[in-house]
């Protein structure tokens, strides 16, 4: 017990040593550059930070107020996530993006109680799309259930709209993240008459021999994958080992980065993944990033991730956050906004083609609008395919609309269950 007091005193001095804050917009980045998911966490965090660095260097911040990114290492671990949240929330953090479904589940009630918005872009709790129950959580522009539906729509497309009797297997990370799409897929399997089989892979997913043996035995027509980190690489390698046709293997957007396909080499050619934003570095904004950030030696991390899929996703997340902050400044008439203003800005966010072009990211993602009821956006996603020879992802489809007829009732039901369990009265949207 005495030891505790000493350590506490030392920790206190360390906390005190951190300097006071000036008027600035604080964007915490709960990143993970260590642990089994670091390969995915690092490029995202780099993209997120680099965009704010670019805004500071090129435009002097957002609306004339400098931005500051506070990074905190979570290692994809919920306990460290709690520590990071508590350590950064006092600094005036405007919005949290933890990039982990587990940490998201923990932060939804906490951040709501503290009045800080949470943006879980393409991950987290799907039913957070229901803005009447989840006032402080947002998951635009797409969520897992919409992702599952888009994947099925793509398969429908290939098969001319009829997939009755086809076998589809879902290979998923055995956690909250991987289990998310199951309900939607079950609903869709009833609607379209395909056979669904569920194949879980335990954390971290380095060992998948038995799962792929099962796939070899069951011979599904398509395999969908909800994987993250090292699990993706292993799955693609195993698929190559059993000579599963790669074009019938479709990953969610978290299973479609360069890190996932490069280790399998030429065998990964043709592997498909969903994405809710565009790929490559052929956009005007990347010239600015090179000029103001990378060449100026201000890039986050090692600076070698620019233009990779997950870097682009971090960049996209930062762009949406910055646009929401701009909107919030406009709505509140203040430069130095509070987290509550930020929430209003996020709820009023509208991303148009013209605005994206203005930002140097034409057609980078779908145009969408957030409303009070719908915090989830349109859920459009496209399919990208890996070209092993060129070592590049290529978009092979337009942005598909998800089947909201199946998803909306599920979102409603899950949000209602959450509201009931936590005594929340859904708010009225005018």
């Amino acid at each position, binding site marked *: 017990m005495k030891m*505790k007091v000493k350590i506490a005193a030392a920790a206190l001095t360390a906390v005190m040593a951190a300097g006071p804050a000036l008027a600035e917009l604080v964007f915490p980045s709960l990143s993970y550059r260590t642990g089994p998911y670091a390969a995915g966490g690092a490029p995202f965090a780099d993209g997120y930070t680099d965009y704010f660095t670019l805004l500071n260097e090129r435009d002097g911040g957002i609306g004339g107020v400098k931005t500051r990114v506070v990074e905190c290492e979570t290692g994809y671990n919920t306990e460290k996530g709690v520590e990071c949240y508590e350590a950064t929330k006092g600094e005036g953090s405007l919005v949290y993006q933890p990039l982990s479904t587990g940490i998201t589940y923990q932060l939804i009630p*906490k951040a709501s109680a503290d009045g800080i918005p949470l943006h879980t872009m393409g991950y987290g709790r799907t039913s957070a799309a229901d803005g009447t129950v989840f006032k402080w959580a947002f998951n635009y522009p797409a969520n897992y259930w919409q992702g599952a539906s888009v994947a099925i729509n793509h398969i429908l497309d290939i098969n001319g709209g009829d997939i009755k009797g086809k076998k589809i297997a879902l290979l998923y990370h055995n*956690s909250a993240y991987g289990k998310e799409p199951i309900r939607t897929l079950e609903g869709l399997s009833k609607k379209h008459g395909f056979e669904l089989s569920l194949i879980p892979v335990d954390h971290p997913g380095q060992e998948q021999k038995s799962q792929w043996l099962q796939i070899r035995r069951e011979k599904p027509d398509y395999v969908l994958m909800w994987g993250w980190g090292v699990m993706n690489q292993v799955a693609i390698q195993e698929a190559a080992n059993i000579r599963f046709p790669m074009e019938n293997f479709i990953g969610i957007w978290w299973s479609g980065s360069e890190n996932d396909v490069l280790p399998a080499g030429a065998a990964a050619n043709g592997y498909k993944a969903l994405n809710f934003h565009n790929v490559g570095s052929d956009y005007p904004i990347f010239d600015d990033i090179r000029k103001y950030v990378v060449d100026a030696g201000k890039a986050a991390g090692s600076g070698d991730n620019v233009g990779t899929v997950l870097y682009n996703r971090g960049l996209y997340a930062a762009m949406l956050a910055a646009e929401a902050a701009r909107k919030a400044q406009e709505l509140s008439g203040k430069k130095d906004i509070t987290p509550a203003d930020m929430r209003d800005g996020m709820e009023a966010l509208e991303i148009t083609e013209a605005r994206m072009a203005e930002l140097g990211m034409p057609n980078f993602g779908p145009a969408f609008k957030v409303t009070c009821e719908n915090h989830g956006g349109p859920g459009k996603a496209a399919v990208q395919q890996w070209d092993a020879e060129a070592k590049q992802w290529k978009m092979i489809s337009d942005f598909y609309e998800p089947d909201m007829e199946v998803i909306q009732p599920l979102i409603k039901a899950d949000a209602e269950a959450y509201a009931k369990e936590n005594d929340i009265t859904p708010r009225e949207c005018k």
Partner: protein
Amino acid sequence: MFYREAGDFKTSYIEDSQTFPIRLDRWGYYTIIFIAFAVIPFFINDYWANAVFVPFLIYSIAAIGLNILTGYAGQVSLGTGGFMAVGAFACYKLMTAFPEINIIFHILISGGITAAVGMAFGLPSLRIKGFYLAVATLAAQFFLVWLFNKVPWFYNYSASGQISAPERTVFGIAVTGPHTEAWAKYMISLVFVFVLAWVARNLTRGTVGRKWMAIRDMDIAAEIIGVNPLPAKLSAFAVSSFFVGIAGALFFAVYLGAAEVGEAFGPQKSFLVLFMIIIGGLGSIFGSFAGAAFMVLLPVLLKNVLVGGLGWPTDLAAQFEIMLVGALIIIFLIAEPHGIAQLWRIAKEKLRLWPFPH
């Protein structure tokens, strides 16, 4: 000179057998209890509660629980994470099924359910020992995590398998859920730690504890002097699992608020708690606290010094922290294989003789 028995006269058996026979120790103990109960709650904020005190207190309960089994009764267990999961899921099911009953009872009943599960998995200990028992308990760890992942009833059929704690109150004050004040979280953990540590201390120095230690030191000799191994071993499993179950329930309900079985209660949790008692000291209540402090607080301290104080990049600090904590564990175990508790004991011996060591 100040730390000595001389002059501290004991006139009754009760005084003679008290936990802290030296006056300075007693004062130290009362001071710490006073600070913990009457000072810290008024100054604690969210960061200190959630990042420092609450995890430390809850891990201390788990470490005391495992220490009873491994340190006192000599039965190695690698199933702590699984038993914590039993406590957490029992608490979740009870909280959601009987919302009108006080959370304190739910936590205690969760401990009881875990004790029953622990006894069931403790049965093999009558036939197997040492490493073999460790492997059997590791099987319990994997089985329990698999069970809570596989059977949707345990997580109330939620879409993702996550369990989250709704708001529950004690005397009208929220202790679980997002609206819990920092001091309330801290106080409920502290009350459980205080009571359980007190129970553990008194169990281990009474008949029950002596039986456990006899079994630990040599089970055949223990049988010859009249210790029945069946009740002795099973009671160790029951008491230990009760503690671990309560730690699991608090860990989920008070500390995290939402948990996912594979991530929060995986095998790494079993090893973490085992490291705590090895570093803290086997067979020592103080050692359980010291080990929990070492494993929980050191990473937080390092992070704050390296990132907050020195401004290192977060990834470098995280990697360095892993290396440094690992190195410290090795150095500790080489320098003092019996843990921090032994260092403390040696320091006390030296203090008694100071300043005339001969």
